[in-house]
């Protein structure tokens, strides 16, 4: 059972949740709620935005200001919320398809703007809700219903994409290390700029079933066996790292000003009064 302070953030009336038994999304939600609670965040001033998909059902279970938007568009909605009221703490929870396929444009531009939103990408390498189609993070050769002979398209590295596009806090964790998830999410929420925390998770139902990871435990072991801390990865070759998950704080920059603060300067330059 979650701690009492974490339970306060849950809409328990909607339990049981829609996720399959053994799904990693619950571990991530728990880490997010522990982070919010330990930071003393006020649910009345906390917005959790999402798109469409299994992971995007998360805000429905969280007792805060929650915004379940359209597929891929959550960061654009969240950008409007944050710009309209910069005092709000804004989190955006999304899946790999939401983030890097249909919402890819919104993702890179949110990174570029460095707007104060904490994006948590739940990467399970597949479209789970629609039944296991290949996503932009499905590994080459993996089987999906739309890649029955193995995926051909090379996958995105979401963290490298985020760093390249201008996000100022980028980190990766796996669901095999929930404590690390919580720590990195906490840092991401505290960061004054656009932060991206990619959490590697699994869909044993739709991905694992076809790729020899059909039990939740297979996936925990998969992540544990392939996790490499950032510091150690720096001494490894690309070949050694090919099938590994480099975790930890991958990029941090606290010099670049946050977007809504820059916009306050626009208002000043225009002779208006900041809100």
């Amino acid at each position: 059972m979650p701690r009492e302070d974490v339970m306060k953030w849950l809409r328990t009336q909607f339990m049981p949740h829609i996720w399959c038994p053994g799904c990693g999304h619950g571990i991530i939600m728990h880490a997010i709620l522990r982070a919010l609670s330990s930071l003393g965040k006020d649910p009345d001033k906390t917005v959790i935005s999402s798109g469409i998909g299994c992971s995007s059902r998360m805000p429905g279970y969280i007792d805060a200001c929650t915004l379940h938007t359209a597929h891929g568009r959550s960061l654009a909605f969240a950008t409007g919320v944050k710009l309209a009221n910069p005092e709000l703490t804004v989190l955006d929870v999304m899946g790999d398809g939401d983030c890097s396929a249909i919402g890819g444009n919104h993702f890179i531009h949110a990174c570029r703007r460095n707007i104060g939103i904490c994006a948590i990408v739940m990467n399970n390498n597949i479209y789970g809700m629609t039944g296991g189609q290949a996503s932009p993070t499905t590994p080459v050769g993996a089987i999906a219903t739309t890649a029955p002979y193995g995926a051909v398209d090379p996958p995105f590295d979401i963290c490298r994409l985020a760093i390249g596009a201008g996000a100022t806090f980028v980190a990766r964790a796996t669901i095999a290390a929930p404590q690390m998830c919580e720590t990195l999410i906490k840092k991401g929420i505290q960061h004054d700029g656009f932060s991206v925390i990619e959490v590697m998770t699994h869909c044993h139902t739709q991905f694992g079933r076809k790729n020899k990871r059909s039990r939740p435990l297979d996936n925990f072991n998969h992540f544990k066996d392939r996790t490499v801390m950032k510091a150690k990865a720096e001494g490894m070759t690309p070949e050694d790292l090919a099938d590994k998950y480099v975790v930890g704080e991958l990029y941090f920059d606290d010099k670049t000003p946050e977007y809504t603060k820059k916009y306050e300067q626009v208002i000043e330059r225009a002779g208006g009064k900041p809100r």
Partner: protein
Amino acid sequence: MPRAEFWQGNKAIAMGGVDAGCRFFSGYPITPSTEIAEVMAEELPKCGGKFIQMEDEIGGIAAAIGGSIAGKKVMTGTSGPGFSLKQELLGYAYIAEIPLVCVDVQRGGPSTGLPTKVSQGDVMQARWGTHGDHATIAYAPSSVQECYDLSIRAFNMAERFRQPILIMADEVIGHMRERIVVPDASSIEIVERKRPKCSPDEFVPYLADEEDDIPPMASFGDGYRWHVTGLTTNDWGFPTNSAPEIDKKNRRMLRKVDRFREDIVAYSAETYEDADVLVVSYGCVARSALRAVRELRSRGVKVGHFRPITLWPFADTELENMVTEYGIKHVIVPELNMGQMFLEIDRAIHGRACTHLKTLIDGELFKPTQIMSCIEEVI
């Protein structure tokens, strides 16, 4: 003090919005509506408002919805292809009941079509563009003055009815410059959205007041936690699969507009009382049509003009009553499309007069002489 200005239609739409209390604009550059964004980028920061140029058209309306949920009066603007792209999230704003104003400065289509030339080809998309049933409120300005006035009215309606309101301008009206009178700020009637009066503990986000079928709206951050979704919901704002709850939500969403139809429907008409022929036109076409009607009147031809100001809801009973009461024999509809509003006008008239369609789809504007010829052909 009221003041005279010489403004472009697009500028008048933007300035009307600012004067109505718009403090958030998000959009994407597209001809022929870009000037709305440019004016907003300049004007909004002056009054503490926010402008953001988004990465695409969908982001433009998405951010506007976010801004509205956070408590601002919001606008987005676009043209042709951009209006097509915004359809899905217009549907989101209808179902989640989020106030916003969306401007479409129409250009020739389909697709990239005629970016710099005029058309009225989006008027049915305005009505039915997003999937599912929804109650469209759409205005068609016919002058720069009306761009300003209807922009204010659109904001008032958006805040009152908690839904998107469309301003269906066109390239000619958007780019035309003419004299307008900007009223004194204190004389402008401003409607604010209805806020919850209950405590946050008692707040049921989509429980509508019986008097108007409209639920009070809280903003994120003001102490009322609620869930916003594009799924069909119950009164608590959470997704439902219960047939009675689905029916209740869907019917209320339409009823909240339908029952106040009289407050919404707007049109203007002239010289119809003894007319044999009535020209029905809107937007920029109404300017050519009025010139033609007045010219022929001066020569003794019994012709009148009817101009819908709200395309949706359409003034159908008003038009039918006029045709019946004054024994109008012919109704001529010149349109810059293949007869989109003509279908609605023909339906409204119920065969009480002969209806004639005059189409123009070459990107040009009707000349008054073309409409005069149509009138002369039927008398």
